[in-house]
């Protein structure tokens, strides 16, 4: 690579002059990003922490079952003791309002801003890879991490629930009972829906991350948007905009526990996430490909 190439790669707004990347460069980039995100000790601690939620929940429910204080609590809690599969749902629903946005916010907010703060971003930009692909690799790595968070909760919930309470036929919200196999399939659907519901937040965090060199600011902004969205969702006066809110459709996941699943409801929720991904993904791309990177 010549000096001119280096200068071109570093100059904002002119990635066009970057030489064509060698074959497999994107794959290598993605692998290194994945290693960075999934290998980082802090992120692993976050995953373990999330995985402990169902263990904690399951243990509490196991100890207090058949006692007077067993009733009440978040949705599905009273069903867990009858069927361990519900521990997955209980844990996911319990983590949705705060824990999952927090963890996603930390990792996505750190994606670009963290490198900028550590001073490694300008060296990363020296690679013969267009910024678009660099951003894509970072986005994919964070998305993979988001999937890991949901899977960590789900698998830990499944194992804990099965160990404590066993797994049997599932009573749906509609009162119908389906076989354990179908229940497992529906649970898989729930896990997938929750995972996809987090994509909008990932795009948002990535955008905030391109705006600043202070990762904490990007993380906080992402979490704040998720929380404010939840607050706005609770105001009936704003019902006109509820449908477009980032978090509004998160609990539509209950649709997968009804006797006839209306795919339209789930599709609507995913379409809203898609809209957030498209808009904030595009914003992140505009910002990242035009920004001056000096550190």
């Amino acid at each position: 690579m010549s000096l001119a190439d280096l200068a071109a790669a570093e100059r904002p707004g002119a990635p066009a002059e970057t030489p064509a990347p060698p074959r497999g460069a994107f794959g290598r980039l993605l692998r290194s990003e994945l290693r960075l995100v999934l290998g980082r000790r802090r992120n692993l601690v976050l995953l373990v922490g999330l995985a402990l939620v169902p263990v904690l929940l399951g243990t509490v429910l196991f100890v207090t079952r058949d006692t007077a204080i067993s009733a009440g609590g978040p949705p599905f809690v009273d069903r867990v003791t009858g069927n361990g599969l519900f521990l997955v749902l209980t844990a996911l629903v319990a983590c949705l309002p705060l824990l999952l946005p927090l963890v996603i916010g930390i990792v996505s907010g750190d994606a670009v801003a963290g490198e900028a703060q550590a001073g490694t971003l300008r060296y990363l930009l020296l690679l013969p890879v267009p910024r678009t692909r660099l951003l894509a690799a970072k986005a994919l790595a964070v998305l993979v991490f988001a999937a890991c968070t949901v899977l960590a909760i789900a698998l830990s919930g499944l194992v804990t629930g099965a160990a404590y309470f066993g797994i049997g036929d599932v009573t749906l919200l509609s009162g119908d009972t389906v076989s354990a196999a179908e229940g497992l399939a529906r649970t898989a659907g729930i896990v997938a829906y929750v995972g996809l519901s987090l994509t909008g937040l990932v795009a948002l965090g990535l955008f905030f991350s391109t705006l600043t060199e202070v990762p904490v600011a990007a993380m906080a902004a992402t979490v704040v948007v998720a929380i404010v969205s939840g607050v706005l969702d609770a105001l009936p006066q704003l019902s006109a905009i509820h449908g477009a809110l980032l978090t509004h459709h998160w609990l539509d996941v209950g649709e997968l526990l009804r006797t006839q699943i209306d795919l339209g409801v789930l599709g609507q929720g995913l379409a809203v996430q898609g809209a957030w991904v498209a808009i904030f993904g595009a914003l992140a791309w505009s910002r990242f490909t035009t920004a001056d990177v000096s550190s």
Partner: protein
Amino acid sequence: MASTAPARSLSPRARWAVPAGVAAVVAGAFVAPSVIASASSDLPELTPAELLVKVAEAEPVPLSGTVVYTARLGLPDLPLSEVQGASPLDLLGGSSTIRLWSDGEDRSRAALLGSLSEFSVVRDGPQAWTYSSSDDEVVHYTVDADDLERYGELDDAARSGAAPEVAGDLPTPAEAADALLAYAALSTDVSVGTATQVAGRDAYQLGLVPRTDGTLVDRVLVAVDAETSAPLRVQVWATGDTQTPALEVGFTDVSFTAPDDAVFDFTAPPGATTTEVEVPLPDPADHEGTDPEDLKDLGAFDGVAVSGFGWETVVEVEGVDIEGLLAGDPAAATALPGMDRSFGSEGAQDLYGELVGEEGTVPGVPEIDAAALYDQLTQEVPEGRLLTSALLSVLVTDDGRVLAGAVPAEVLRDLA
């Protein structure tokens, strides 16, 4: 991120135009369907009588769909679904979504959807179930053995369905339309409104405007599917607010194909609390009297008196033990005064007392109990307790009479 190739030659300004373009496309994608759906329809004109005959002659059709029910009755706000999941009490205010299936005959299912909860009403011929997911509670309604034989002879209308407005409880004889119109004409201006679209289907609108000022109802609009003549939407405006309907129930999406039979098969889930209720069938003789002309026959029942006419009708029921009804069991009834929340069992009550302590801070989710709800919904008046809403007034007098009607509260108080 798939835009790598064209991105190469873009100027920074053009790059910032991309998100704007994306936002415009997204907004377009979400708005376009509703714009297309609101295209006007061109249905042949009908007179009110023709429309009523059309409705009366229509065969009940199998259907499935989603109904949105919105009540703006001006009742105190009860954020119940947040606390205890979907329950029929949600219908007192706010917006609820109900999913509906009907085979057009005597099997139907309605599910009131809450987020992560559901209240289902399943009717399968002579038996019916309700299931509340938040309580894991089943109530099984059956007809006793003697009545079961008679059941087949009885009209569907003899039984209260889950959502009578839409479940196909239509008068089958065509003459009923004329009779109804003639009866309605005594108190009501009946007209055919502008054709509309409900749930993407062309619909006629039947407008009913009371001729009197003595009622809380300003006007009623019923949208009827042009093809199947099934009612698709009912809107009721109150005199208090003539802009926004006080009560609105209508399909947001509907399909007139036979639902899957499995929907109507209900078995109580294992582990659920099941209550068996035997419902007495009304005598066929009594049932004859439900024609609109014979509304006054209501007075033939013991302790029921009807005063007023048409929209101003007030029904008075005597000898109602409100406290007994609210409490459900004698033990709780005695514990009512001074008790903010009561539980079914004394043990639970004691435990609750311990957990709550003196401060009254509630751990976890409180049970909603009927007495507290009753106190919250009604207000003290000299005659007893009064419930006022945009469309209905109910007065429960201290001597156990209940007066109800779509009339201003003052009318009831004068009558009592």
